[in-house]
């Protein structure tokens, strides 16, 4: 061993992080009773436990929000607590950005900012906020263990006991990922809970990972984001859903999959027990899902289509139904759902045959984006699941079916399907020459344009015109032709000619409804297994309890 090394280890402390944490813990000695901080001392505790410049993960999930802690954070003194580097998977609540206006925080790394997409764009433009990066969920969780290791985590749980053990139940979501990254590298974990109890239904996060628990003044905010009322499903969406089932799921034997949040995919879910059944596909397709407990999945579950569903998060109103179907869902000993966003994203990335989603814009090469001018909404989980993970080594029939060459080293591909109507509401074309994302990226000075799903990952496009089998395209030109053939009368679609479409149909690059034995006139709402939220409640035998805003009766 060299002289300098010996010297180094003699003088260097290897416990600076641990020591720093102990110092902070000392500061709240008088405030806390064990791990419990009284509700009214929350702001004071935050001022003592957080230091200027800290990296703070604030749990704003897709659905669950640590709303008491985020509100408390806006009340700290900006002279004491400032320059915070915030890490939030979802920027949802007004105060998530107000802390930047107040001078408490200065930098942000995030995944999704849909509910605050205008303010965040304005604040970047005004220099009120320093932009870190926009991530897909898994990417952000990954960085929590590499170069965004948190100093403090502010998270939410349903219940805690006096030892700090947590019950997060159906809405576990990303709490374990955040807490793990913080707790095991001497960060401070502060949890708001809806209630303190003596006995927990089950332990989702052990107390030894948790530093402090605060009973919130009111329960954390939780949104029903994945509920789609079947009443709003149109016949065009039903037509596209029929093409998805015949032209993609059946054709490639898709057994495991993730669905997006839209009405298009809700239509597929509701056609399985009717149209899917009539094709004799039960047991062949759609057996394993990585998906939130979508209420529109109830009829397919009840008719025996579904083997398993792993969930990113919960869904308001589905608690009792899920608890009554433990053969299908992941549930704890207490009977309630256990969700886990990080694990479900891993599953959705590596372990499923197919991802199907929708978009607001797509260019001639199949690149897609949901950003609109002046808004910066981020992506959430779509790019994570909507790409081909090239490290995949296990095979399934659908994955192998994407091989189009004789190469002995050829590998399969995940099916990434985009399902869009050629025009959005208000006569706005979905297929465009150039994505708004390019302009938005420049305006926000991002290093890359905020593309949601890259064209070279997309294997299929389904529109009301037909299906484009992009994975079969031998060249970029052929790929563009196939996209144009299903792009209707949009600027991109007008580049196609009937003759070209004929050729593409012959080669199997494009299928029109009639090529799939689908008559446009058959796409009727009567095909939906449930036509209203009320029907879904009936299918569930009364176990599904929809939130008030979805009740029409």
């Amino acid at each position: 061993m060299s002289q300098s090394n010996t010297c180094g280890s003699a003088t260097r402390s290897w416990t600076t992080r641990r020591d720093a944490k102990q110092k902070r813990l000392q500061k709240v000695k008088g405030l806390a009773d064990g791990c419990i901080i009284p509700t009214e001392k929350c702001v004071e505790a935050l001022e003592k436990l957080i230091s200027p410049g800290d990296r703070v993960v604030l749990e704003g999930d897709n659905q669950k929000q640590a709303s008491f802690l985020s509100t408390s954070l806006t009340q700290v003194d900006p002279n004491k607590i400032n320059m915070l580097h915030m890490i939030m998977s979802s920027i949802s609540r007004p105060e998530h950005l107000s802390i930047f206006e107040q001078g408490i925080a200065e930098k942000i790394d995030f995944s999704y900012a849909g509910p605050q997409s205008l303010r965040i764009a304005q604040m970047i433009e005004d220099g009120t906020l320093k932009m870190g990066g926009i991530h897909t969920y898994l990417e952000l969780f990954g960085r929590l263990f590499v170069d965004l290791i948190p100093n403090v985590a502010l998270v939410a749980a349903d219940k805690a006991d006096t030892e700090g053990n947590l019950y997060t139940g159906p809405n576990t979501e990303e709490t374990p990922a955040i807490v793990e990254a913080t707790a095991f590298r001497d960060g401070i974990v502060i949890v708001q809970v809806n209630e303190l109890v003596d006995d927990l239904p089950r332990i989702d996060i052990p107390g030894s990972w948790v530093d402090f628990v605060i009973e919130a003044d009111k329960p954390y905010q939780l949104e029903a984001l994945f509920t789609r009322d079947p009443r709003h499903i149109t016949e065009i969406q039903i037509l596209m859903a029929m093409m998805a089932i015949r032209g993609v799921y059946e054709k490639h034997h898709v057994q495991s999959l993730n669905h997006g949040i839209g009405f298009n995919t809700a239509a597929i879910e509701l056609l399985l027990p009717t149209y899917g059944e009539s094709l004799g596909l039960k047991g062949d397709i759609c057996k394993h899902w990585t998906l939130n407990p979508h209420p529109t999945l109830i009829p397919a579950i009840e008719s025996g289509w579904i083997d398993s569903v792993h969930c990113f998060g919960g869904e308001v109103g589905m608690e009792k139904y899920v608890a009554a179907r433990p053969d299908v869902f992941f549930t704890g000993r207490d009977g309630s759902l256990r969700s886990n966003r990080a694990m479900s994203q891993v599953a959705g990335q590596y372990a499923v045959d197919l991802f199907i989603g929708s978009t607001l814009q797509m260019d001639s090469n199949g690149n897609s984006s949901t950003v609109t001018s002046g808004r910066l909404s981020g992506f959430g989980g779509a790019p994570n699941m909507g790409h081909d993970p090239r490290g995949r080594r296990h095979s399934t029939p659908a994955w192998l079916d994407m091989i189009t060459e004789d190469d002995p080293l050829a590998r399969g591909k995940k099916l990434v399907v985009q399902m869009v109507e050629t025009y959005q509401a208000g006569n706005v074309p979905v297929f465009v020459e150039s994505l708004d994302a390019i302009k938005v990226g420049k305006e926000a000075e991002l290093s890359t344009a905020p593309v949601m799903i890259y064209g070279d990952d997309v294997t299929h496009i389904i529109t009301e015109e037909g299906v484009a089998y992009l994975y079969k395209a031998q060249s970029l030109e052929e790929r563009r032709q196939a996209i144009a053939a299903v792009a209707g009368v949009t600027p991109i679609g007008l580049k196609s000619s009937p003759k070209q479409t004929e050729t593409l149909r012959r080669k199997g690059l494009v299928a029109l409804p009639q090529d799939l034995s689908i008559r446009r006139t058959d796409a009727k709402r009567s095909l939906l297994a449930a036509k209203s939220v009320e029907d879904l409640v009936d299918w569930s035998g009364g176990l599904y309890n929809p939130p008030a805003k979805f009740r029409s009766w």
Partner: protein
Amino acid sequence: MSTIDEGVRSMSTAFLFPGQGSQQPNMLHNLPDHTAVKETLEEACDLLSEDVLLMDTEERLQSTITVQMSLLIAGVAAVRALKAEGVTPDLVAGHSIGAFGAAVCAGVMDFKEALSIVKLRGELMERAFPSGYGMGVVLGLNESRLASIIEKYSSLEDPVYLANINSPDQIVISGAISGIEKVLKSVHSNGARKAKILDVSVPSHCKLLKSVSEELSARLRGVNSKQPAVPYAGNRNARPLRDKTEIIKDLTLSISHPVRWHDATSVLYELGARLFIEMPSGHVLSDLAKSAFPYARTFALSEGSITSAVILYDREKGTNG
């Protein structure tokens, strides 16, 4: 187990103040029957040394000066009545001239001062462009597509500008009538649903009115302004403004810049507004809010009573927990 619905969000109430186009004959006569309204009308009569109840005839509302003053009086009267009944806004915004009502509502300036400035604003606008200029509206095209069409047809002699972005596909343009007509003619073949010239003789909200901004600026600088009690969403840059200087600047520059109304109300929504109450008269702004924010409640005071506003407001606050 947690089964909370939308209950825990920070629900806020926003007051919206309409601009020109929302005036209606008898609009001051039709204001809610409330002491605060009567007092405001009397105050306006004293300040202007004329009977304001003679102002809201169809004939007199042909003048932009009368229209602007009537809208301000109606807005302030309504706010005072609502506040007297305990309905107070968390956020405010006004469309064009409506911004002055919003500024009074937020406490940035008093009614007296606002009335004299609005009168001046009307006079300056009326004088600015006597003929050959105006505005048009296009439905069904987004901002970037319309902007590229305008770029094609606008010229030095016949300038055309974007004036109000009211919704992603409802945009008002401003400028020389001949230029506007060219633009309107070509938007149909580019996918617009509807396009027409508006019955307005002033090309508002574009640089043609720069001189009006400059003259207003001198007057507004002399205003004894106070810090706003609640955030005010700006016309020009759609930012939530919390500083009186910024708000005065917005009131000054708005007339020579496009009104980014859709963005201004989107900012209010992102800040938590879930109940939008539109001051009299008309329901243009509540209709826009209703289509932009399906999960929010909207209410036009012209179409309901103070009592219904109180009920909606209490309900909204009730869900706040």
